[in-house]
């Protein structure tokens, strides 16, 4: 019988070494797979990890790809710390995009200083309201937030689909399901670095994402609400004795993560797509769950985890372009990387013990007598 025993004190060296070992194992397993399939393993690994960040503009694009993941994961950290399982960030993201799109498309004449803040507020409101559905159903009727939030994702996808095909469709789009293009004031511009110029598609939303991760860290580690979240997650009974309300915490963390996902939707559309279309997110809401766990529910680590996952994504494209490696193979490799990192995390937090089952032990002694 193998059992997992939580480690009381995790040595710092182990914490540092775990991801390094995990990545080393990924490289070895990956190299074996690539070689078996007939690709030069060194070349393949180069395409995955080095080629996608070998030019300054690609580094910019890496941050752009990680941007929605970092924003969503910064919010999900609150939920998962409080043991509230919001699986519906994808839907909250869509609602954020729809609400901010309402502002951008209904008031196209707004000046930039009014447009951007209004769009951000609208996107937060959209994501928050969508997250309130599982929150209130949970606190009021004790429904399962995993199911409710997940299923609302599909409702959200159908909602935006209907909106861009019907009421908000651009009359000049020849029936294609697209809204009008946003006005410039509603678009997030690229960052022009002094002396360097543009860094790929690097845009101001990325700065916002980094600020949100830092903000989430500050709230969780330095403010009372952050403490409440942690206590309610780790020891709900203790929390109740301290006078914290579980319902309040549930509503709050779902609200925070919903609003964050909503902002991610707004940023993704305003920085990269420039208009609403049936598909605006490509699983960011789900990928961000992996990012959150990869970051060990630490908002600052979310930045690094988001970049790692984004790199794996870009590496897959680069391996396809340079080596003709099929997408399924790149997907498998990405899976191995995440599996190793999460497995390493488990080894880090728990130690393994192999024990004989008690009944077997009894029999054993009985036999000796």
């Amino acid at each position, binding site marked *: 019988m193998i059992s997992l025993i939580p480690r009381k004190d995790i040595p710092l060296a182990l914490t540092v070494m775990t991801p390094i070992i995990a990545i080393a194992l990924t490289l070895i397993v990956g190299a074996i797979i690539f070689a078996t399939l007939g690709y030069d393993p060194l070349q393949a690994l180069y395409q995955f990890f080095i080629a996608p960040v070998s030019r300054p503009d690609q580094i910019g694009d890496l941050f*752009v*790809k990680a941007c929605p993941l970092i924003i969503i994961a910064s919010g999900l950290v609150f939920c998962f710390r409080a043991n509230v399982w919001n699986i519906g960030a994808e839907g909250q993201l869509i609602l954020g995009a729809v609400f901010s799109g309402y502002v951008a498309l209904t008031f196209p004449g707004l000046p930039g200083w009014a447009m951007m803040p209004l769009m951000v507020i609208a996107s937060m409101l959209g994501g928050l309201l969508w997250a309130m559905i599982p929150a209130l159903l949970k606190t009021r009727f004790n429904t399962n937030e995993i199911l409710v939030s997940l299923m609302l994702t599909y409702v959200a996808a159908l909602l935006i689909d209907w909106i861009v095909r*019907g009421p908000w469709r651009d009359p000049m789009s020849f*029936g294609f399901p697209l809204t009008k293009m946003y006005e410039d004031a509603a678009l997030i511009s690229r960052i022009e670095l002094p002396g360097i110029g543009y860094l790929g598609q690097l845009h101001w939303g990325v700065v916002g994402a980094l600020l949100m991760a830092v903000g989430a860290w500050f709230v969780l580690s330095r403010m009372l609400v952050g403490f409440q979240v942690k206590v309610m997650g780790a020891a709900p009974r203790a929390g109740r004795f301290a006078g914290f309300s579980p319902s309040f915490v549930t509503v709050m963390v779902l609200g925070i993560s919903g609003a964050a996902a909503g902002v991610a939707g707004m940023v993704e559309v305003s920085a*990269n*797509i420039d208009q609403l279309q049936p598909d605006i997110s*490509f699983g960011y809401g789900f990928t961000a769950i992996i990012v959150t766990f990869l970051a060990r529910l630490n908002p600052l680590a979310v930045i690094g985890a988001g970049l790692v996952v984004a790199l794996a994504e870009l590496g897959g*494209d680069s391996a*396809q372009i340079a080596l003709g490696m099929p*997408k399924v193979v790149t997907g498998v490799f990405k899976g191995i990387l995440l599996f190793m990192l999460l497995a390493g995390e488990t080894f880090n937090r728990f130690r393994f013990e192999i024990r004989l089952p008690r009944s077997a032990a009894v029999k054993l002694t009985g036999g000796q007598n």
Partner: protein
Amino acid sequence: MKKFFTTMVAGAFAAVSGISAAVADPVKVGFVYLTNPGDHGWTYAHEVARLDVNKHFGDKVETTYVENVPEGPDAARVIRELARQGNEIIFTTSFGYMDPTLKVSKEFPDLKFEHITGYKRSGNMATGNIRFYEGRYVQGVVAGMMTKSNKIGYLASFPIPEVIQGINAFALGMRSVNPDAEMSIIWVNSWYDPVKEADAAKVHIAEGADILAQHTDSPAMLQTAEKAGVHGFGQSSDMKAFAPKAQLFSSVNNWAPYYISKIEQMMDGSWSTGDGPDHWAGNTWLGMADDYLVLTEFENMPADVKAAAEAAEAKIRGGYNIFTGPFSDNQGNVILKAGEAYHDGNLWNDMNYYVEGVNGKIPG
């Protein structure tokens, strides 16, 4: 038919190979795919054409493709990366790549971009399309003669001009041989979703349809038809292997002559985005007469139906405009009187109705 086409193209190949022999460095050509060649439909047809490009040019070109590229910000990044990797002409093979292609084309004014099925262009971005609806007219003729229940089931993807053109062309073909036949549309709201496509096919069959047609990409509808013992048509590529008894024929998209001619134009400097009011729907918008759309062998049908199908095919190859009056919409309003005909611009701007024989109304 296929054989005819092969000899045609082979002849063309022989004629032009002398010109491109002078090029020393291989010209790099990039392709962006929506799904992967394993879809046995849309992307598969593009992959077949890419391999034809390789065969035709030999070591004079080097082709690269990226598969499963979502129609969003990732598309711009992938197209940009292909541009940076030295691809001189890049084909983006789905409607949703329109704005990303436009964006990147402006960043790389020295490169050439070809967007499939869209309507936006720039100085170095052209568009290309196939007259898919021509094959659907022939399908309609076959369906109208084959049906016993007078009910035809049709799977549609999105209510965009290309799809409406296809529905109406099918209905005009159907009504030209059978004034009692009617077709019903189920909107799958996807180009490729085998599960939904199979479900929609089952609904059509349950409602009495004995002939199925599709404007979606997977062979799922034909597989369902095969099991239920009804007939149908394949789309984009030959789907006979999935439904040997059910497939009447497939309309196959043959992109090879388009790719080859555009690459040759780029090599000899004659590449252009073209213009003209009727051509915005596609600089290159050709059909059966030019072998851009190829029909597979007519099978699983009686001799008289086969003869009618061959006659319809020959008529279109001879330049017949399918959208020639008289015909009315399904509300009874006369659209075109005898002797009137649509030109290409009408097909994109004015076709916001179903013709007689189609049930229901266009959603949205």
